[in-house]
């Protein structure tokens, strides 16, 4: 099976969907002639033409506003917002328009739009190229929110997102575009070709939206994570030799509560980790859900490991990043409690 990194896998997903469905178009800043600043759309304009892979003005609100209109007119647009940090000028169009169009028109109008956006830090991007704003979007009813952690899922989930008749905000953790990152910036980079999820079928397949994945089965505690943190969690669990069950949430909305419940009912202990800031972050929703669903199985308080509640600092990103050390401490705390 071919080896792909996450960029190639995402490119392959768009390539396949552009080929299968004449209604699919790709639009965004630098996505056309140049192929995207991360090369995610490389070659697609040459293959499908400038009417289907479209360079856009630098106006995220205009990109999202216009793809809603395209969706209403029968297309299935894939919009790239170059960095998740740039998405806010389009926030009104997402929160008040895209998410609620089907509802406010009682199903007469909808816009099957996918918004792709690289997120997360660890790339020396400072506060305007490192944010993880997924929690701002999971709070909006009417959109699905997805974040893959590996090339196989990235391709399968992006194909599902494009095929979905509801709008999907699709965050791509850019720190793991080229290889799985375990949270240790001093170790040499590892390419996806050394990882089983770097094996990606050439052709069409999909990974369903709304299903979490048990990445590593275990008995002692459950670690809920997604994106880059899936790899950090695995490394941290190995360090302390904890028999952790690691769950890649993958889809934040809709959330696969059943898989989470099943795990915590078994282990009785839960650590939640994400790179986004902690206060009112998505981890709070996960924590509340586990408390509501599994209270009588819990043997220890749930612990959250998150980015600090500060902007992402350029010079101190490894102090900010919820790396292995903080995860190990959390795992030990949860295992020792009770």
């Amino acid at each position, binding site marked *: 099976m071919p080896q792909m990194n996450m960029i190639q896998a995402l490119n392959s997903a768009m390539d396949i969907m552009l080929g299968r469905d004449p209604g699919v178009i790709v639009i965004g800043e630098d996505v056309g002639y140049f192929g995207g600043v991360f090369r995610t759309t490389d070659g697609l304009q040459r293959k499908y033409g400038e009417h289907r892979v479209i360079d856009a003005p630098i106006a995220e609100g205009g990109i999202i506003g216009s793809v809603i209109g395209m969706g209403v007119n029968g297309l299935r647009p894939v919009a790239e917002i170059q960095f998740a940090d740039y998405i806010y000028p389009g926030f009104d169009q997402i929160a*008040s328009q895209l998410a609620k169009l089907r509802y406010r028109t009682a199903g007469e109008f909808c816009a099957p739009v996918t918004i792709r956006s690289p997120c997360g830090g660890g790339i020396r991007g400072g506060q305007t190229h490192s944010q993880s704003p997924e929690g701002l979007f999971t709070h909006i009813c009417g959109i699905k929110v997805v974040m893959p952690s590996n090339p196989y899922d990235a391709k399968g989930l992006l194909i599902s997102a494009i095929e979905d008749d509801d709008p999907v905000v699709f965050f791509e953790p850019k720190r793991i575009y080229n290889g799985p990152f375990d949270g240790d910036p001093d170790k040499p980079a590892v390419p996806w070709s050394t990882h089983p999820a770097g094996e990606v079928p050439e052709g069409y397949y999909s990974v369903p939206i709304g299903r979490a994945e048990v990445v590593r089965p275990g008995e002692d505690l459950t670690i809920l994570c997604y994106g880059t943190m899936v790899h950090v969690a695995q490394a941290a669990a190995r360090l302390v030799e904890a028999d952790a069950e690691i769950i890649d949430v993958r889809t934040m909305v809709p959330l696969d509560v059943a898989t989470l419940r099943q795990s915590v009912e078994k282990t009785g202990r839960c650590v939640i980790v994400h790179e986004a800031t902690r206060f009112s972050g998505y981890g709070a929703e996960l924590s509340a859900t586990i408390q509501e669903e599994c209270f009588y199985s819990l043997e220890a308080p749930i612990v959250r490991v998150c980015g600090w509640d500060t902007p992402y600092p350029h010079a101190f990103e490894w102090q900010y990043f919820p790396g292995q050390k903080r995860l190990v401490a959390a795992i030990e705390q949860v295992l020792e409690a009770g």
Partner: protein
Amino acid sequence: MSRTPKLHVPRAPARPGEKPDFSYVHLSPAGAVERPEVHARVRDMSGLADALVRVIDDDHHAVGPWDPHLEVHDLQVGLRHMLLTRAFDERMLRMQRQGRISFYMQSKGEEAVSVAAAMAMAPTDMLFPSYRTQGLQIARGRSLVDLMCQCLSNSRDMCKGRQMPVMYHWSRGNIFSVSGNLTSHYPQAVGWAMAAAIKGDDDVAAAWIGEGSTAEADFHHALTFGAVYQAPVILNVINNQWAISTFQGFAGGERRSFAARGPGYGIASIRVDGNDFLAVYAVTRWAADRARRGNGPTLIEHVTYRAGAHSTSDDPSRYRPKDEWEAWPLGDPVARLKQHLIAEAGWSEARHEALESELRNHVDDCWNEAITYGTMTEGPFLDENELFEDVFRDMPAHLIEQREQMRNLQED
């Protein structure tokens, strides 16, 4: 001598108790403005953004190059749509005052802007309305009962009780949903038009906003995208002088017209007498032909006056002279088309009164039918379980669960 900048805060020309002053409204005589070919270059027609296209002159005759030479039948249909819009508004306003509906927004004084435009466009063209363009619905033949049921949030409400009154939509009639977030539909209309061009359709999109919300970023987004991609779209600005309590200067209209923003983006732009049915029709048809032939977008500023309150929650006597509308130099669009028909097409006061009476009866009949589908206080009511539908195409588990929670409470 040293000078320091002073913050300029635009001041309305007249406030309550003062004499109305419309000396700031730049007028052109009827028939005076040139009509370029629809394929003319933007740089060759920038004068249209500052002039005022008018067709009906002071003697009620149609004059000049913009006269659309409509058949008498079409003029009568236009008058009928405008009168029906006004009669509908009057009835709904009264129903709100009696507490039968929660809220209403009338379009009095602005009927020509939407009725003439809808008539000038093809039925397959997509319209992106604002909240004061009910004339689009009426000109496209929407049943008043449907509009009334929406305002009543009753069992036949097209929005299933999810939207406050006047937020209509009509997919079969190619009319998009009204949004309470202003100007958000402007870039959406451009995107719709881009999609038409991508697909190779010859359909055109049109959107309407008020002059006040040209200040929103989405106005800029729409003009940028419309110009960059030469989208087949008509971007209408209804300059009715007032955005709730702030006059048009607060949106930046003190020194240049709103139409004058278009040429800076490279967009053909026309300022038109919005109370002149023939002028609105002609300009809209010109813009639609231009778009359909691949010559790109047009920005149209309709100069009109908001004769009524912003909404039923508003009291304009607090911020503008009571007699301002009487002083409005462009008059009443309904009266002007009526006088034109009398002058040129054998219309008469008697026929006009008979038509008004017929339409009032029709509105009464529609209201009586609408309330058989329920009112705010009497059934039949919508099924409240529907409140969980249409958030997503298929209901996800958490919404099924929440619906169960609500049902269980009802059974207690």
